[in-house]
């Protein structure tokens, strides 16, 4: 079932278009990646979802109903530029922020305790933010985002500025939250994390959505007939056997076997390639190369910029 949907959203700032006719829909209990180069309009879309800015055109739905101000307590938002009150004690401000999301003081305290204990930071409760390192602050920020058990979680560039240990912790927690029923939208430039986490993605470039769908399907779509082949035999023979119908992208030799990366040109099939190879060498493995999200991203954006 769809938890969230944005329909034909449009937003113009002064003279620049931030979003033009963007629609996305997010399945319940899934992780949705919002991708795109800097300035594409991701943060604008995220702010519209959070009702910080209103769209000029288009509608947004939560649970199939048009979103209202009251729905805001069902969202947890970790902005890209995030901060805390410097002079306030951690525990005090975490309770305050949770209360602003509609929790009672008692529930807030109870839930916060759970998270503080989970992250082993109970000892910081009475410390001021200015006494904490950046990594410590990030943990607190994460907790204040999830403490009110929101149905929809939105992370804007969650991995930027996180050290690898915290980034990993965050990844695990995002997966845990999904398991417990939360739906997550996040924007990122970290394509590795997209492959690991995202069930679906949308790619936005220059205010326009240029691609969306399940992560695997999109990678599948952008594959370009490239194969990784391990074989035993003489490269010269292989090269000769493949002839001009195939392009050899790379080639290396070692004791266990030789590696070859080949792209076949139009009009050929896997079997044709295998057939040609079999005559020249002994094949150990044969695997189609699925492009990384990184490759997909670059290719899609470059193509869209050409048009």
């Amino acid at each position, binding site marked *: 079932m769809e938890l969230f949907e944005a329909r034909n959203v449009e937003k113009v700032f002064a003279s620049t278009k931030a979003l033009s006719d963007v629609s996305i829909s997010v399945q319940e209990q899934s992780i949705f990646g919002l991708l795109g180069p800097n300035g594409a309009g991701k943060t604008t879309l995220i702010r519209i979802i*959070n009702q910080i800015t209103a769209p000029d055109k288009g509608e947004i739905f939560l649970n199939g109903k048009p979103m209202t101000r009251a729905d805001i307590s069902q969202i947890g*938002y970790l902005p890209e530029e*995030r*901060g805390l009150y410097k002079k306030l004690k951690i525990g005090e401000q975490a309770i305050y922020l949770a209360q602003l999301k509609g929790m009672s003081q008692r529930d807030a305290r109870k839930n916060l305790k759970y998270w503080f204990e989970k992250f082993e930071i109970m000892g910081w409760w009475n410390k001021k933010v200015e006494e904490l390192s950046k990594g410590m602050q990030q943990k607190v920020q994460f907790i204040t985002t999830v403490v009110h058990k929101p149905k929809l979680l939105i992370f804007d560039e969650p991995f930027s500025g996180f050290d690898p240990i915290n980034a990993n912790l965050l990844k695990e927690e995002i997966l845990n939250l999904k398991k417990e029923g939360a739906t997550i939208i996040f924007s990122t430039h970290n394509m590795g994390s997209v492959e690991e986490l995202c069930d679906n993605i949308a790619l936005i470039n220059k205010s326009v959505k240029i691609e969306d769908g399940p992560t695997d399907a999109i990678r599948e779509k952008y594959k370009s007939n490239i194969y990784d082949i391990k074989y035993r035999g003489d490269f010269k023979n292989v090269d000769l056997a493949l002839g001009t119908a195939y392009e050899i992208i790379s080639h290396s030799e070692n004791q266990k076997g030789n590696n070859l990366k080949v792209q076949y040109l139009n009009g050929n099939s896997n079997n044709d390639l295998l057939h040609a190879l079999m005559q020249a060498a002994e094949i150990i493995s044969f695997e189609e190369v699925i492009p990384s999200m990184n490759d997909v991203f670059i290719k899609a954006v470059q193509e869209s910029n050409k048009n």
Partner: protein
Amino acid sequence: MNNTFLILKQEYLKRVKKKSFIILTILMPFLIAGVYGLVIYFSIKDDTEERTIAVYDESTLFLGEFSDQGTTNYHFIPKEEYAQLKSKIKGSEYYAVLYIPGTIYTNNQAQLFSEKQLPFELTEQIERKLSRFIENDKRQKVIEDSGIPDLEDRLEKTKTWITLNTLKISDSGEAKKSSSVVAFIASYAMGLLIYFFVFMYGAMVMRSVMEEKKSRIIEVIISSVKPSQLMAGKIIGTALVGLTQVAIWVVLGGVGLFIVQGFFSPESAQQMSQSLMESQGQMNPAMAQAAEPNKVMEIMEMVGNLNLPLIMFSFVFYFLAGYLLYSSFLGAVGAAVDNDEDSQQMVFPVTFPLILSIMLLFPIARNPEGSLAFWCSIIPFTSPVAMMARVPYGLPAWELLLSMGLLVLTTVGAIFAAAKIYRIGLLMYGKKVNIKELIKWLRYKN
């Protein structure tokens, strides 16, 4: 509404729980009293510096007549010494050199040489001595010439000092003792207080907004509450801090007044005023005679005769309205800028009318019925300070109501304009903002 209350509570408690707030609130009245006390102490304190003034009396009128006074001694010197000393006072035993020329009787001029800036009291003292002597001398001659035997006594009896008892007739026809001096002091103090309160708490709102913007917590906050709720909570919470402070001072003041009243029982008041009169007596014996002994009680009565309930009410009203007006502007400025330098530049144009009104406070308090006072107290941007300066004197009800009405209307408009700037400004970073830019924001739709 619930969110506004949460923010209000947070802002209020954050400030009231601060040690600096508690200390400042309790110490402030003592500090102010202390400063005034010191000023008064130093102005009535006896001059204790030992000085010797060399006197060269060319006129030869004063021989033996120049008596020492307090710690100032006069020492007559001959002409030769004067000639030497005049060019070289430094290193000599003398503080200054007084030259009484032979022409003093006709042209009323004398000279005092010194290498230091001379205290006002000293020059005044010498002037008085010289004048009194010459005056007496002249009068003596007139008396002798006239041939009337008891003229001196009769002239003495003509000296007069009239004390003006100002009475104010209230609407009910009752005459109450008032004092323009008491009203002036109250007027000036009220204007100053309003200025400080509006400025202090308005700036507090601005800093609080800037803090949220600079620490980047703002985006999280406005994803939970509406910017208008955030601003309302902040402004009301800070206003309550101000009112708390005033309430504490009123209580402290009440307790203080009670103690003072006990201390100034009629007998002690009489004593006190007598010693007060004595010190004044030197200056003007005629005036001292005329003054009644229980002057302190009388001042108390005059303070009591000010329309205190109206003053209190007006104070709270003009504080709240003036504060709302300026804090919404300052809050908008805080949201629009993202560094301290820019805020400095913006604060001045925004608060200029307030600064102007404090500069005009003195003329307004001195002439509360003039056209300057009238217009300043009607125009909403200057009216909080200017009107507070007029209220202690009393004024027609329609003027007060007009001023209040205009201020309320302007404040409501200002809040709407500020809310718009605030909402746009909060997430605007790295943009140099000026007044022109802010006006452009006001024109943005929704």
